[in-house]
C-alpha cells in the first residue's frame, strides 16, 4: 500500500541522517516511538517528538532504555508501527527486549546510531562496533534483519525498508547507523506519498472464532489479530504453541525456534541488499558498509588508478549476512579486504563464507574517526600481491 501523505514531508531537504531517519519512520507509518535520549541518536526522537503530534501519534520519553524497548512493543500489539532509537550503551540495555521481540514476533525497528565503545566510550564520535551485538546480543537462537545506511538519503529510504521488512517477517529490524552518517548533512529527496510503498501489518483474515495467534497457515510467518475487535490472543516470551500459551516441551521449542530462524534464513537471498561495482574483473573485493563504504570507495578509486583490479561489495543488509554472494565471489577472486570501524566483526563472517577459497584481510580501526583512505589502499595493495 501507499504511504499516508500526512507523514510524508515531500520535497528536497538539506538535513542530517538522524532527521532523515525520523522522516523515513514517519513516511513508513510509524506513529509511536519510545526513547531515552543518548548521543548521537537524540536528534531522531527530538524531531519525531515535534513532528508526530501533527500527524496523529505519540512519543514517550521513558525512564530508561529497558522501558523504551518494551513500551514500543506494547504499542505494536495495540496496532501501531513503532520504533526506538539509541546508541551503544542504550543498545546494550535493550538486548533483553530485542530477544522478546524476536520470540513474540513483534514487528518493530531498533535504530542504533553507533558510537565508540565499550561502555560509554566516545559519545560524540563514530564506530561500527555493535554489528555483532545486533546479531547476537540477546540470548537464545533467533534471527534479525540489520540494515546499514551510508548517507542521509539512505537513512530516509532504508528506514522505510526497515519498517517494511519488520512487518513482512514479523521480526525486530536493527537500523545500524553510525555517528558520521547520523550527524552528516546532505541533500535528501523525499518523494510524494504515492511513490512510497509501505507494507501493512499482516492482519488475519480469519474470524474471531477460528483465529490462533501463532498458526502459520502454510507460511512461515503467522498473522496478527486486530486489537480491540474481539480476537483473543496471548503474548509471552516463554516457549509457546500456536495458541500463544506457554508450552514448554522440547518438540514445541524445536518447532518454534527453528521457525524463527528459518523464516529469515529461507528468505535471506531475497532480503539481502548490496551494491556492487567492478566485480567482473576484480581480483580483490573490498567489502564495507555504512560510512566506511564511502571512505573505501576513495581507496578503491585510488587503487584502480594504480591499475589494480579492485571491486566493491557494499553491504546494505549486514544481517542476514549475504554469505552466498561472498561464497560465489570467493571462487574467483584472490582476496577480500574488509575495512570497518571496529577491531574485526563482519570480517569474521566474510572469512567464514569464503571458507579458505580466498584470503581475507581486515582493516581495523578502534573508532573515533573514519579510516584514512590510504590505510585501506595499503591493504588493497598487499592483498593484490
Amino acid at each position, binding site marked *: 500500500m501507499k504511504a499516508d501523505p500526512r507523514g510524508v514531508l515531500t520535497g*528536497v531537504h*538539506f538535513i542530517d541522517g538522524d532527521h532523515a531517519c525520523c522522516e523515513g519512520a514517519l513516511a513508513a507509518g510509524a506513529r509511536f516511538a519510545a526513547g531515552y535520549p543518548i548521543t548521537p541518536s537524540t536528534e531522531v526522537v527530538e524531531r519525531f517528538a515535534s513532528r508526530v503530534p501533527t500527524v496523529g501519534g505519540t512519543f514517550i520519553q521513558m525512564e530508561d532504555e529497558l522501558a523504551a524497548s518494551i513500551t514500543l512493543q506494547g504499542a505494536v500489539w495495540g496496532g501501531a508501527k513503532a520504533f526506538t532509537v539509541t546508541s551503544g550503551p542504550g543498545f546494550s540495555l535493550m538486548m533483553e527486549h530485542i530477544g522478546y521481540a524476536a520470540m513474540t514476533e513483534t514487528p518493530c525497528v531498533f535504530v542504533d546510531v553507533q558510537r565508540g565503545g565499550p561502555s560509554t566510550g566516545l559519545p560524540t564520535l563514530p564506530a561500527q562496533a555493535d554489528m555483532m551485538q545486533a546479531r547476537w546480543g540477546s540470548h537464545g537462537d533467533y534471527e534479525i534483519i540489520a540494515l546499514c545506511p551510508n548517507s542521509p538519503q539512505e537513512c530516509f529510504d532504508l528506514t522505510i525498508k526497515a519498517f517494511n521488512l519488520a512487518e513482512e517477517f514479523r521480526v525486530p529490524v536493527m537500523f545500524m547507523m553510525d555517528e*558520521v552518517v547520523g*550527524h*552528516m*548533512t*546532505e*541533500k535528501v529527496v523525499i518523494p510524494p506519498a504515492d511513490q512510497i510503498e509501505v507494507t501493512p501489518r499482516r492482519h488475519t483474515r480469519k474470524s474471531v472464532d477460528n483465529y490462533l495467534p501463532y498458526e502459520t497457515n502454510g507460511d512461515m510467518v503467522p498473522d496478527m489479530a486486530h486489537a480491540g475487535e474481539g480476537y483473543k490472543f496471548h503474548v509471552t516470551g516463554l516457549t509457546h504453541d500456536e495458541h500463544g500459551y506457554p508450552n514448554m516441551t522440547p518438540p514445541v521449542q524445536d518447532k518454534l525456534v527453528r521457525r524463527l530462524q528459518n523464516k529469515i534464513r529461507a528468505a535471506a537471498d531475497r532480503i539481502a541488499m548490496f551494491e556492487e561495482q567492478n566485480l567482473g574483473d576484480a581480483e580483490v573485493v573490498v567489502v564495507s558498509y555504512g*560510512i566506511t563504504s*564511502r*571512505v573505501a*570507495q*576513495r581507496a578503491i578509486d585510488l587503487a584502480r588508478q594504480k591499475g589494480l583490479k579492485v571491486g566493491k561489495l557494499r553491504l546494505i543488509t549486514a544481517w542476514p549476512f549475504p554469505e552466498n554472494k561472498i561464497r560465489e565471489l570467493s571462487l574467483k577472486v584472490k582476496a577480500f579486504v574488509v575495512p570497518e570501524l571496529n577491531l574485526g566483526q563482519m570480517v569474521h563472517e566474510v572469512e567464514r563464507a569464503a571458507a579458505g577459497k580466498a584470503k581475507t584481510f581486515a582493516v581495523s580501526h578502534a573508532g573515533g*574517526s*573514519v579510516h584514512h*583512505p590510504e590505510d585501506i589502499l595499503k591493504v588493497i595493495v598487499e592483498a593484490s600481491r
Partner: protein
Amino acid sequence: MQLTEIRVAGFGGQGVILSAIVLGKAASIYQGAFATMTQNFGPEARGGACSAQLIVSDSPVLYPYVSQPDILVVMSQEASNRFVSELKDGGTLIVEQDLVRVSELKGNVKVYSVPATRIAEELGKRMVLNSVMVGFFTAVTHLLEPDAVRKAVADSVPASFRDLNLKAFERGFEYGATAQAVSPQSLEDAGVAYAQE
C-alpha cells in the same frame, strides 16, 4: 565546481552551523552540485567553540571530513588560533576583522576581512552576522552562484526574519564585491594581524 573543502569556525550562537547549512544547501539544492556538512561543537549551547565542515563538489562527496580547507572562515580568536595552520597553501582565509587577529599565516594565503558583526548591528540585529558573512563569502570566493545562495538564505531562516537576513546577505555581498585580498605580509598594515613575539 571542483572539490572544495571549507571550514567555518567561531563560537556557539554566531550562526556558524547555519552559515554552513546555507552554503551547502545553495550548492546541493539550488546549484545541482553535491555537498556534505559535518559539525563539531562543545557541550555548551552558546559561547563554546563551534565549527562546521563543508565539502562541495561536482561529483558525490565520499570522504566526509575536511583535512586541509581550501577556504577557512574564522569568526572568533579561538577558532583562528586553532584552525589557521590547517589552511591549504594558496587557500583563502576569511576573518571577522573586529573579533580576530590572525598570525602565523603561510605566505601565499589570500586573506579577506569583514566587520560582519558591526554590519549586522547597523542592520539592527547582531544575530544576522552569519548572513553578512555568507554574503561576503559568496562575493569573494566566487564558488557559488549568488542567486543560489540567496534562495538558500531565504528558506533557511524563520519567515519573520527572512527580509532582514536577505538584507544582511546583500550588505555582506556588497562589502565583498569591493574587498581586496590582503597578503599575509601586509596584514599588519591592514589591521587584521599582529606579529607574534
